[in-house]
């Protein structure tokens, strides 16, 4: 009878093995079978930001620092600027809101910075423009300064100016928004970042303008670059530089913000009024009377930069290679250039900011008592952003304005230039540039010019000025929102 338990044990073992096998099959089927899957989708909405009002800020009349030491930081105006406003359609209601600068005692007679405001629906994003011009002819300041009225932004780069001997640079901060702005200015120079605690936390109340003397922050700086960061309200920032060589004024200019840091920068319509310059490899730069390209690397990486200098009217260009140290501003001489208009292409392996400067040298007084000498002038050419959509351009009331269009893209572009109702086509070759004389026009609208860069350059013989055409900061893109 010993078989019974044996059979029982066998059966039991079989049962256990069977259970194990069944479990194995179950697990295998559960893990390997292609079960259908269900995943709920999160619902979201793509929100198109409501159209906001268009604002262009014009920096207002040129300023000079008071002579007396007590009020040396107070800049007052000495004349008024001419303002040209263009809106498309022309019937659009554009309000001119003054941006007060309490420090300017002459504001009552000379005017002040102005915000051109078009409420939503009046004009499309790019179709409001303004430009101001002023020709100074005082004993200390002379020259032509033209500025395009620009949109206010949270962050901008001002490349230009100098606080070296005889150079005065003011930073103009205008707040056209209804929120107080707190502005941090971070100044870098040829020797690296300048430690200037007073440059941080500058309060600009709504609808006011503040003027900061760069010399107060960074004296004796030959090549400053100012990084303007505003929190709260947005800021339209520009530089005003004046120069005097000995007793002769050497020029004045208003410098708008340059294009944001990028690996390629493009400067169009660099007007070299007088042939000459300093060799590219010149180690010891003296003064500022030569065409130069100012470069700055905001990041921490050194930059390998290639600058293409292309003559506007044809001919072979030159190429300049430079190595940039991060945090230090480098002025790269553009070599000896013949008079004419040039396009500068900056290629870098890390993002950089750039602006070029050219000048007309003052003619010193000769021994002849009749001759007091002739003042010079200079102009800054900030890098611009590519055009997009329809852009209105205001032509300042100054000598022989020329619109320069350059095409850094690989395809020719045929843009349409609408001059007070009369349209004309302008063809720009791939990599080439074209200029259009705009004498007698108040403004223009550029269409179909996506990818082109534009600048309006004023050449009055011994006075030069330039204002790049900067498309307005893009309206904030639609954003996807998950509201749960």
């Amino acid at each position: 009878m010993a078989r019974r338990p044996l059979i029982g044990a066998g059966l039991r073992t079989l049962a256990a093995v069977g259970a194990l096998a069944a479990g194995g099959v179950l697990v295998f089927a559960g893990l390997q079978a292609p079960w259908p899957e269900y995943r709920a989708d999160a619902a979201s909405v793509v929100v198109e930001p409501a159209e906001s009002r268009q604002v262009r800020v014009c920096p207002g009349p040129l300023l000079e620092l008071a002579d007396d030491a007590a009020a040396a930081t107070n800049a007052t105006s000495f004349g008024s600027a001419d303002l040209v406003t263009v809106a498309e359609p022309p019937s659009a209601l554009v309000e001119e809101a003054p941006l007060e600068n309490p420090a300017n005692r002459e504001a009552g007679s000379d005017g002040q910075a102005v915000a051109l405001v078009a409420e939503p629906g009046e004009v499309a994003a790019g179709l409001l423009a303004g430009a101001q011009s002023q020709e100074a002819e005082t004993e200390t300041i002379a020259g032509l300064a033209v500025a395009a009225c620009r949109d206010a932004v949270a962050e901008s780069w001002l490349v230009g100016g100098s606080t070296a001997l005889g150079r005065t640079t003011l930073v103009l901060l205008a707040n056209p928004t209804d929120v107080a702005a707190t502005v941090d200015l971070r100044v870098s120079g040829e020797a690296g970042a300048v430690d200037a605690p007073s440059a941080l936390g500058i309060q600009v109340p709504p609808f006011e303008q503040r003027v900061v003397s760069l010399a107060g922050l960074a004296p004796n700086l030959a090549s400053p670059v100012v990084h303007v960061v505003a929190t709260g309200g947005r800021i339209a920032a520009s530089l005003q530089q004046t120069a005097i060589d000995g007793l002769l004024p050497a020029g004045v200019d208003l410098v708008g913000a340059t294009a944001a840091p990028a690996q390629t920068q493009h400067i169009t319509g660099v007007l070299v009024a007088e042939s000459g310059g300093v060799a590219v490899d010149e180690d010891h730069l003296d003064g500022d009377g030569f065409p130069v390209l100012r470069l700055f690397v905001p990041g921490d990486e050194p930059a390998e930069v290639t600058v293409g200098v292309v003559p506007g009217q044809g001919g072979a260009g030159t190429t300049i290679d430079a190595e940039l140290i991060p945090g230090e501003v480098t002025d790269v001489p553009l070599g000896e250039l013949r008079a004419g208009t040039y396009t500068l292409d900056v290629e870098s392996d890390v993002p950089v900011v750039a602006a070029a400067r050219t000048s007309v040298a003052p003619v010193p007084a000769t021994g002849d008592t009749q001759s007091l000498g002739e003042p010079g002038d200079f102009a800054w050419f900030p890098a611009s952003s590519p055009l997009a959509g329809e852009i209105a351009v205001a032509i300042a009331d100054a000598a022989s304005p020329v619109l320069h269009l350059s095409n850094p893209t690989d395809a020719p572009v045929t843009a349409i230039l609408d001059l007070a109702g009369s349209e004309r086509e302008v063809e720009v070759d791939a990599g080439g540039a074209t200029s259009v004389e705009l004498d007698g026009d108040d403004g223009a609208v550029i269409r179909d010019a996506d990818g082109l860069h534009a600048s309006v350059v004023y050449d009055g013989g011994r006075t030069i000025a330039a204002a790049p055409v900067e498309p307005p900061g893009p309206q904030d893109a639609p954003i996807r929102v998950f509201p749960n």
Partner: protein
Amino acid sequence: MFPRVTAILVVHRGGDRLRRTLAAIDAQQQAPDELIVVLDDADASADELIPESASHVVRLSTRASFGEAVRAADRVLEAPADERAALWLLAEDSAPAPDALATLVATLETERSVAVAGPKLMRWDAPDRIAHLGRSITRFGRTIDLVADELDQGQHDEVSDVLGLDPAGLLVRHAVWRSLGGFDPGLPVADDALDFSLRARLAGHRVSVVPAARVDVAETGVAGQAVGRGRTARRARRIARSAELHRRLVYAPALVMPLHWLSLLPLALVRSIGLLLLKAPGAIAGEFAAALGAMFAFGRVARARGTLRRGKTVGWSAIAPLRVPPDEVRRRRRAAAEARRARARGRSEDLQFLGTGGGWVLLGSLVASVVLLPWLLAAAGVAGGALAPLSSDLGELWANAAYGWRDVGAGFVGAADPFAGILAVLGSITFWSPSYAMVLLWLIAVPAAALGAWFAASRLTERGAVRTFAAIAWVAAPPFLVAIGDGRPGAVLAHALLGWLVFAALGAATSWASAATASLLFAAVVAAAPSLTPALLLGWVVAMAVSGRAAIRYLLVPLPALALAAPLIWDQVQRGTPLGLLADAGLPVPSAVPAPGWLALGFPGGSDGAWGVVVSWLGFPWEPIWPAIGLVAPLVLLAAASVAAGRRRLRAALLALAAAAAGFATAVAAAHVSVATTGADAVAIWTGAGQSLAWFGLVIAAVVALDAMRRGAAGVGAIAWIAAVVLVLPLAASLVSGRVPVGPAAERELPAVVVAEADDDPRVATLRLAPLEDGSLRAWLEHGAGTTLDDASTLDATRRGLTDDEERLAELAGNLASRSGFDAEAAVTEFGTTFVLLAPGDESDGRRAAATAERARAALDGNAALTPVAETAFGTLWRFRDAPSPAPAAAIPADAGGSATVVWTVVQLVVLGAALLLSIPAGVGREADRRAVREPRTRRPRRPRRRTVVEVPPGAADAPTEPDAPVEEPLEPDGPAEEPDAPAEPDGPAEELDAPAEPDASDRSDPSEPEAPEAPKGDDRG
């Protein structure tokens, strides 16, 4: 001269009892002068039995009450010739002893004041036991059986004057019968003779019981109440209550009658609660039926009051001495309780909690809990994962558990998650700081789970080592420890309760209290882990199918869960998202879907049990899953061996393995389904709940296998549990070292400025913006000091598409995060927003998130409607300049849920309250009480036969462990399971064939029933 006696015999069925009764009448030493037989809608066969001697035969075509039948017989009689003429009321099942009539007549003759005389009623099946001997009422009018089911040793032969009598064998002076109008038609069954006796007393007569006259009564319902079980008992109970209420309205002074009338329903309600506590839920319907019947019986009451008033000659004080005094009532109650205890003795089995190591398990698990999460002891709150604080206000906590305003996002009206109810209960325990309830839960989860498994195992095995194995193996379950570390309150709770649920469910077959406890635990587990619902319902169906007559108790198990979830089910189904019911309760927090291998091993949420770290640390070239598989193997092998544990344990083994399979299936299904969303993420269902169930099935199967081992169970068990513990050792290490999402709660959920504002304005609304990885933006609203765990709503998380509110919120948030001409004041006017909180663009979220954060920050900074408040750990905070406080738009609409809130809440409270009352143990022997009296001896041979059909889990049948659950209780007096014994089915179980036509007779056919101290009607509850 001998007075004229007319015997009136009421016949319903005929048969053997009638034969014996007729024979007994024939055999009277002093025969009645006349015999009137009333065929009360009687069976045709009864006709043949009517003897020639019957002077009249009255046929009633419709069934009338005993009183009506006697009245019908009385109608054929002439007016009584003198005072001495008497009526003798007999029923077909009341056989008088030969000297009964003579003795009764002698009493009437010798004592002229006696108008009604009643015999000593003996049990038909046990003629040496007194069935009834006189009745009385308490001060409050409740009927008391003066003597009920006692062995007759002459101990009551001195009794004579009583307040009332039973109808059978009653000898009443004919004139008095007529003058009092006979039995009250308002008391057709119960208390008819009592009421008549009482009225005779009030008319100045005496009522006497004559112990020397004996009448055997079978109590089949011809005269007086039928006795029986199940439906019969329920009916008897209702009739007795109806009679009591009728008498109350009739006896009451006219002035207080309205008060009595008004008290009927409230009293029924209160008594129903008592019935639940006494585990007699089946009697509740009768209670209300009786109350409603009494309320709308104006005619009967008015007639009865008239009859009473006309016949009354003496005051109520005359009968006061005959009432049962209160101390006698108390004495009887004490005696009944003593008898119950005596009966229950030896049946309330001992779990041997300490004797089999339960104490050590408790101690060990407490220590383990503290070792795992030492910081919990000092923590004021626990956070991380899906954990959040609870509302600090108890009122809010409970409001969040009820249908109505769901305060999540902009808020909406809808059903609450059942889980919110659990949170409300937990939060109320730590009422001083509801959020501390989560700390407590985390602290006691391990001991609670260990004890639950220990108790569940105690239903299956008596061996301490095996029970301990179950406790350790259950606590070492990977899904449990992952849920603790990942902060999954629902999964932790479900795991801690699963063992208890099984423990209670296995006991439910024998006890209402256990069944109700199981139902509450079922509701809690389903609420905590809705994904377990299909598997648990399957288990419920199986339990119903295999539990035979105990099915009635299982039937109600899902009811509290259903009541809790009903509004949610309704809302979800109506919305067309029934799958949303499976969403995990609590905050929707995305988790990784486990890889297939880890899923099978029981690790949820993408966890690898920290084996990846361990393996790389040890430098082995293995896949981390191999050691884990090796460590799970002993448990799996042991579980598979359970099917070889013998035929007796086969069912338990198969059920446990089926549970494991169901759990695994649940986990696999959960891994494939995401029903909730949060922000841009779909939230996969937490697989841990299903894995817990699977692990539980394995543990229980292993317990079955170990229990079957004659030797070495402790050693084999130790191998399995040590392997399981090693399996989770890396997890435990990461818990101890704090490398898990769970940690002490931060002081607040929102910046201090907002929290301070919330002190003044609890509805202060904060619009939160968080840049997401793809550059999109998540926007949501929080009220007060932050969203709480009880605010969370799966109804919201599983919504497909957006509500209007959400679309407007998106529009608002998108514009606030952009330079835009949008009127930001809409945030204030539409949503009552006071603050805007922008989460910092996290480095880990990538450049696009950072860009979005920067853009939103610039836009918010430049918005004139906002003032920056602070940079906080939660992000940058702005405040709307013109935000009113409190903002009208942020207020919860008054009466948001409307009447639906009231209706749902009442339904839920009634169901849960009933389950709660029912789950409270009624006291030793209480549940057995109602059936023990009539417990038929014939049941014993039936049990083994039933056992093959009734799939009572072995633990429940063989080793019941709940102290209050009597062992031998397969017969449910109130349940339909009793129906085989009900008169409706005379061809009942085979073992009752000895009395096929009279199934109830078998109740009394057990002469050896030693002590049955209380008669069914003597139930002394007031």
